[in-house]
């Protein structure tokens, strides 16, 4: 199987504190993997490196054949813009705009087929049960509803890689299942997903789970639980 993502000896240090220590990870195309672990161990930092938002201090990161570790931040932004969807833990929204406008906002940065994109956003909204909120102002939505808007916004460009940092943190179990079901379906449709989560439900959906321990060491979650 050809690896879509390949991380070799990734090291990241912040203010003389090592966050990630020699991380190695291989993810096949169209796989759905999750990374679990206590808060503050470096999950978000790893996802940011995968999304091209920041660069590792050393090590190799290859995505879909692109040597990401050799790219300048500007080039990483271009790659992110064209093929990576990103759901952040903070989940920022553009105030004063409607839900639909927020979902379509990433498309403003390039040319897109408005009709097709609107239809796709409507379809995803139905999947995550927020289709009745599309014309509402974003401020009117609850935390859980906004989180689902963030998920759809990250998917609107049909990315080949989706990086999701706690995408279900504000959701109840039923809605979490909706999101994971959607992710599972997308994986069968040319999307690779790397997700950091605390949800106990994720195990039922992902192809592989990893555990990140203190000091930024990535372990196979199944092996960790066996121990």
């Amino acid at each position, binding site marked *: 199987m050809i690896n879509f993502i390949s991380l070799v000896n990734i090291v990241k240090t912040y203010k003389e504190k090592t966050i990630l220590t020699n991380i190695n990870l291989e993810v096949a195309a169209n796989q759905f993997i999750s990374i679990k672990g206590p808060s503050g161990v470096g999950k978000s930092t790893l996802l940011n490196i995968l999304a091209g*938002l920041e660069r590792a201090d050393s090590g190799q990161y290859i995505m879909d054949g692109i040597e990401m570790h050799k790219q300048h931040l500007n080039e990483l*932004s271009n790659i992110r813009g064209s093929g990576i969807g990103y759901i952040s833990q*903070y989940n*920022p929204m553009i105030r004063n705009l409607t839900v639909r406008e927020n979902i379509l906002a990433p498309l403003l940065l390039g040319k897109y087929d408005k009709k097709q994109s609107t239809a796709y956003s409507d379809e995803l909204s139905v999947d995550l049960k927020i289709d009745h909120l599309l014309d509402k102002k974003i401020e009117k939505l609850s935390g859980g509803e906004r989180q689902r808007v963030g998920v759809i916004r990250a998917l609107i460009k049909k990315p080949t890689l989706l990086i999701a940092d706690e995408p279900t943190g504000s959701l109840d179990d039923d809605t979490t299942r909706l999101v994971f079901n959607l992710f599972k379906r997308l994986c069968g449709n040319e999307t690779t997903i790397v997700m950091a989560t605390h949800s106990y439900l994720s195990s039922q959906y992902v192809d592989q789970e990893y555990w990140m321990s203190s000091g930024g060491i990535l372990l196979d979650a199944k092996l960790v639980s066996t121990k």
Partner: protein
Amino acid sequence: MNTTRLLLKNKKLLTLIIGLLSFLFSVVLFVLLVNINISKIEIRSASKFHNYNIYKLTDNLIGEREIEFFKDVKNYDILNNFNNDVFKNNKVVFYHAVLQPIGLKEYPPDKKFSAYYESDFNNIYEHEGAFYQITKSMQVTKSVFDYNVVELIEGQYFDDSAYVYEAGRKEIPVILGSDYRPYYKLHDQLEVHHYFEKFIGRVVGFAKENSFIFTNNEPQQVLNRYILLPSMSLSEQPSELLQKTEVNEVFFRALLLSKMGGILMTNLNALEVRKEIGEIEKVTNFTDYQIIGANSLAVDLLYKMIETNQTLIVTISGVVFIFILCAFYLFVKSFIKRQFDTYLVFIMSGVTNHKIKKTIQLEFSILNGISIGLALLCTVLFMQDTTILSILIIAGFIVWLVFNIVVYLLVNNLLATTNIIEKLKGD
């Protein structure tokens, strides 16, 4: 462009306030510049008089004494010699701008040009079957143009020959105030009565709107509604001209006496100027005159007032500038901070930090450009002064540049001190 439009739309009120601040700043600056320009002209005019002692020449030929004086034709020559010698004296500048209405045939319908339209006085009279209007007019010496800033919209000033009356002369050049423009054009010929003599007034120029001169009566006489005629001296002795021409002696008498209302501008003190004119008196044998202190005080006062006004306007404008600039800084800062989530959305979607900075700068440069352009348009429309349009455009560009620099510094400062990655993690 899409993102710029979105950012501006997203914060409508803040955008409006920032645009308004930029507009206000520009309007205050433009009005200040227009005012400084006007003050400069006023100061330039007043300063020429400010450096001189000003005296007024006047005659004692009143009533019976005048009649008696002009009974002898030789006295015409005596007075003419006296006028000429005063005019030629190099220690005094003879300045003559006298308000003296003329009769105008086929006058414009607007009554504002008539000499006494403010009162019930009948300004129309009939002469040889034709109707004339008593019309506002001023006779001026060449020194009037030397010592005032009278710019012409079109045409030219009087040439030297215009100031000399020769036997048989029937045409006088005239310069019209700007309000006459709808009624006459260059080279038009007006039929005028000047000191009871008929002349053809040929239009040689139009004074610029709101041009003003210092006159015997007013420190700033606006010319808009006036017809300017050259104050003429005589090419020969009046006794000879009276023989050569059929011109009524009243014309010469009025011409000679009107000169006696002229102003003497000099560096001499009162005693010295009396001595100087006294020498002319001895040579010409004309004794019926007086020299009195004139408008020095008014000119000094005017000069000081203009200077004080200018200082006051500059000071107030300075305070307003600082206030607006501070407000602009604070509102732009607030705008950028409130837009942070929007920037994060764009960064997540593949925009670089650098492009975000460029986008913010672009949105403000467009906003400021529109505001400053509108301010320029409003200033030109309301002040109706396009004389310094090029200066206003340059000033507008500088304001635009200053605001762009403020935005540039703010954007770089705010985006550099905020860790975008930490924000995305929700820290």
